[in-house]
């Protein structure tokens, strides 16, 4: 009955295997993860820095040359809209999933269908969402390539991340806090706002920042909802195309002219800066809260 006892390899071989697979293996993985990130950033900076002119930020694109003021403002405008639309929906959805749905008889949280829909939505390729936005909103509702369809498609894309992040952050707030709020006689909404949500704010903000970083870097869905414009964005929601930073990178990188090439890398550099700011801020918030959480213990 008992399993046959097999002899282990010699200790030296076992420790060699340990060293090889564990230390060397994880170091290699580290190198292969961090290396390409650095390489991408260095490539962009090295190609953009030699011809960088600050006037890029203050002039608009002329054909395939000029500056990127229109694209920078357009990207910021897109991010603002996503922050408002996806932020409200995503945070509300996260609160709903974490706090309001209750538990089933078997102890599992309810709302499985909504959670599943959110997760599956996060797996739909962004190009498909862009194409749907294009056929339904841009062509179907005659909105044409413009700001509102871009906002909607980007928001649908990042809502799952925000809802998920909010839910996770709320679930990490100790149950005692909620009980304490209730014991003090706070109504559910008030206690949620003043006690529970307040402790979850770092997690919520982090998920918002990551969602913004994702939106800033999107290209495929924007090509078919926002279009491209060399003019600074106006505040009209419909019928006017909008510029954004990923377009020049995607469109101008293989143009023959040097100016187009420069513009492509300038836009890439600005993208790197925006995304890095968002992600580093998110990281700092996480690190800060973790330190506080540890010191409290």
């Amino acid at each position, binding site marked *: 009955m008992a399993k046959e006892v097999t002899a282990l390899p010699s200790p030296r071989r076992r*420790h060699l295997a*340990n060293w090889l697979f*564990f230390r060397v293996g*994880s170091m290699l*993985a*580290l190198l*292969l*993860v*961090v290396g*390409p*990130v650095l*390489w*991408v950033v260095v*490539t*962009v900076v090295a190609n953009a820095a030699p011809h960088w002119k600050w006037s890029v930020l203050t002039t608009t694109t002329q054909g395939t040359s000029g500056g990127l003021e229109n694209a920078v403002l357009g990207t910021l405008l897109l991010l603002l809209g996503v922050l408002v639309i996806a932020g409200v929906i995503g945070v*509300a959805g996260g609160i709903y*999933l*974490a706090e309001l749905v209750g*538990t089933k008889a078997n*102890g599992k*949280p309810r709302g499985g269908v*909504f959670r*599943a*829909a*959110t*997760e*599956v939505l996060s*797996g*739909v*390729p*962004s*190009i*498909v969402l862009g*194409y*749907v936005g294009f*056929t*339904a909103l841009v062509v179907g509702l005659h909105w044409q390539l413009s700001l509102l369809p871009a906002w909607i498609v980007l928001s*649908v894309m990042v809502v799952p991340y925000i*809802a998920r992040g909010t839910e996770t952050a709320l679930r*990490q*707030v*100790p*149950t005692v806090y909620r009980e304490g709020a209730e014991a003090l006689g706070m109504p559910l909404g008030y206690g949620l706002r003043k006690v529970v949500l307040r402790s979850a704010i770092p997690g919520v903000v982090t998920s918002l920042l990551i969602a913004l970083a994702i939106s*800033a*870097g999107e*290209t*495929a869905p924007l090509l*078919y909802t926002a279009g491209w414009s060399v003019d600074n964005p106006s505040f009209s929601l419909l019928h006017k195309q909008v510029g954004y930073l*990923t377009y020049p*990178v*995607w469109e101008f*990188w*293989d143009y023959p002219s040097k100016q187009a090439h420069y513009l492509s890398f300038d836009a*890439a550099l600005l*993208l*790197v800066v925006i995304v890095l700011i*968002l*992600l580093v801020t*998110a*990281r700092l918030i996480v690190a800060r809260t973790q330190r506080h959480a540890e010191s409290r213990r």
Partner: protein
Amino acid sequence: MAAVIPAGALIASVVVLATKAGPAVRVNGAHFLTGSDWKLGNTYGAIQHTDGVAHPLGSSYGAWPLIAGTLQSSAIALIIAVPISLGAAFALTERLPRWLSSILRFGIELLAGVPSVLIGLWGALTLGPLLARDVYPIVADHMPNVPVLSYFKNPVGHGEGLLTSGIVLALMIVPIIASTARNLFAQVPALPKEGGEALGLTDWEVTRKITLPWVRSGLIGATVLGLGRALGETIAIAMVSGALLNTITPNVYGTMGTVAAAIVSQLDSAFTDGTGFAIASLAELALVLSIVSLLVNMLARFIVHRTDSLSAPVGVGF
């Protein structure tokens, strides 16, 4: 209300695509999945009617090369990404020095956040040419002429193509697989691992004999999750694959195309078709892509969640 929006958006997307693709599905039939010619036909000439659907004379839509390209590049991406992700996930959960693991964690976050258009730019201008000049020729020259390995023989091309696409895709799915795997490893209880240590197993043996079997099905789920992302990746692949429509590459270096890349690169020319049939066919392509990635994702979530539920729910009364 807010929770209804994702479900609504999901259903609306599928309905919109299915409605738009309807005529194309009827006319293209099974040829769409098996044929290998993607032609708009003569968009200035005569209009033909098949089953009451108008389309230009000579139009023909067979997406097999695109589907094959998608499968090939995703397979290469998984082969490269899975070991790297598992290594990174081990490094994160096991006893690495703190500064190292925090660098690694931030590296993974950054990799997830780098816009795909930048990875495409780097892949097309830096990585691809470098590989084609310095790495691919060495590999190609030394490959024996046996099945499978003969796919690695010459010509190596200029760096745009299947293998470069696979490598770029691998980079983009490493964060997904690594972070899911990390969460799974973190759920393995300490006691069995400590038991293993107490019996004198090395770290590697504990990992291989205790941690890995504990989360095996979850790891499969994580891999499938990565596959879902690889199937749908668009912009980077449109930049490094060569974005062809009708060609299946004869070796691993050749230029090719994927379904997602075709949707983004073909929309402009689809507008030249006045009958709207090209747009409908693109919708059918998007429909195929979304159905496949929905199925892949649901499968992955199902597998991951089955493992997930072993752990205690956080924040619910604990």
